[in-house]
């Protein structure tokens, strides 16, 4: 799941040597080609989709064509159907990421530091992760109500595991020689954590965050299906079950997909800033 352009040559180097410049223009050309490929792929998908609808003579309530979906999307946006649902889902995702992410960071660090904690906690963590969230969601909604709390919890649960594991791997992988360097410079344990271990573990942690952010979208939708009155998951149910508005269903799916891409891209941008070129 390493998406587009994980580790680009983003940084401004020493700007000294000609090879550096050549590398940068080559990278720019490669990026241009990648954008082109993405656009071409999208177009091919849309064309195939339209062909399937026209040639198969599918009615709109079974499979609406891309143009119809796009029209419905624009219309729903203009009328203001999508926005409140999008806002609700986005809130759940952000809070769930925050809760699950922070818990994942803390537990991942604990697992890396303490062998005992690893032995005691690992079976439970893995067991919890293996339990289908789909089965758990209705229960949690029952216990916590259909408000924000159950959504954030479900979202957080699904995000927790990849971030905890990535954090553990990141901290375990810190080069002990760098820690020895820190000790030789009389760094305090806190300074070693902040100036050596966290920066060294950051690339792995962001790997977990990339997985986590996409799962968070799924978690929010699943949580909404278990009971909610707003959110893109609710809108899917409405469009399918009550309104028989298949184009709106597809427009909602499109919104969810775009939301996932936007969140993922945000993580990548933050990662570039924090991890940078190494």
């Amino acid at each position: 799941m390493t998406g587009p352009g994980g580790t680009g040559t983003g940084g401004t180097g020493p700007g000294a040597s000609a090879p550096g410049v050549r590398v940068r223009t080559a990278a720019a050309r490669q990026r241009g080609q990648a954008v082109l490929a993405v656009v071409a792929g999208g177009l091919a998908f849309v064309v195939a989709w339209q062909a399937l609808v026209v040639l198969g003579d599918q009615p709109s309530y079974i499979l609406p064509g891309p143009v119809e979906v796009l029209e419905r999307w624009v219309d729903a946006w203009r009328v203001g159907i999508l926005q409140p649902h999008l806002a609700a889902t986005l809130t759940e995702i952000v809070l769930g990421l925050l809760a699950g992410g922070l818990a994942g960071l803390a537990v991942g660090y604990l697992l890396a530091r303490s062998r005992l904690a690893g032995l005691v906690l690992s079976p439970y963590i893995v067991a919890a992760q293996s339990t289908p969230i789909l089965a758990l969601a209705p229960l949690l909604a029952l216990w916590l109500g259909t408000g924000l709390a159950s959504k954030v919890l479900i979202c957080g649960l699904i995000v927790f595991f990849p971030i905890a594991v990535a954090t553990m791997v990141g901290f375990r992988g810190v080069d002990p020689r760098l820690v020895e360097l820190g000790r030789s410079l009389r760094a305090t344990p806190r300074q070693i954590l902040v100036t050596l271990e966290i920066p060294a573990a950051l690339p792995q942690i962001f790997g977990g965050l990339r997985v986590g952010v996409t799962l968070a979208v799924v978690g929010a939708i699943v949580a909404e299906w278990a009971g909610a009155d707003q959110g893109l998951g609710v809108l899917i149910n409405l469009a399918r079950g009550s309104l028989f508005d298949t184009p709106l269903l597809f427009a909602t799916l499109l919104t969810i997909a775009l939301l996932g891409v936007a969140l993922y891209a945000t993580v990548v941008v933050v990662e570039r800033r924090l991890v940078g070129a190494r």
Partner: protein
Amino acid sequence: MTDPAPAGPTSAGAAAGPGPGASPGLDAGVAVGPVREPGVAVQLAGVSRSFVVRPSGSLLALEAIDLSVRRREIVAIVGPNGSGKSTLLRVIAGLLAPDSGSVMVEGRPVTGPDPSVGFVFQEPRLLPWRSALDNVAYPLELAGVERATRRDRARDLLRLVGLAGFAEARPSELSGGMRQRVGIARALALGPSVLLLDEPFSALDALTRDRFNLELLRLWERTATTIVLVTHSIPEAVFLADRVLVLSPQPGRIEAEIPSPLGRPRTVADLDAPGVAVAAAGIRAILGTPGDPPSGDPPDGDPARGPSGAAPSGAGSDPAVPA
């Protein structure tokens, strides 16, 4: 990769001409270590150190080491793998505590890493996410030196090692030799009076290595430090040091102490001086080896491999566990 930085220290050193400590004007504004006075910089008495070895029992790495290094002296330590060279250096640095015996640096007992000691590791050990400048400034940052001050000082140090133009470069953008220069500049950041070097140039090719050895001597002339250095190269030890200590294989004991036949200052020509060859032959005879030990051997300076990295005592450093 070529190393496009010989202009700095080499030419400056040449301009300084003969005579240690000549031309203070070229000192690049780097504060020199504590006041030079005759005396002892490093003193070890009866130092022993052993390591726990996994299957059972322990391994004696150093046994009853007595060592006294005068201020401004350069002492080289040679010995086969597993003779405890790196362990000895880490004991002096306060990174490893001896099992018995006493360690004093600048008249103070060593209880942990000391700010008057700079350590240059076998690998540069730069933080890959920091620029060269920020790597050199790192010890100052840990010590709580204000940002502007530490950047100024780091800039001076980079100039001192001939990397003035590479302040913003990342380690990945530097050649191996340049990275080690950054490592040396970082070791000098706190103005140490004692510099410990653990096979600092072992990863460099022979030509670069010769040049680095000369530059190290220039640096030593300008910074008034005491140097204890571990090396695998016997000629290098003779060329750099005032005294060469020969450690016996496991447990490490000081087998012999060979004074270098060379005077100061030393030049490129001294690399091939007949006295060097004679002294090197003498050391080889003591070590019982017909030729140079193979270079590029495994980094026996590795500290703990444990997950915590906090306790190097268990997984020994020098007691070379056969790979």
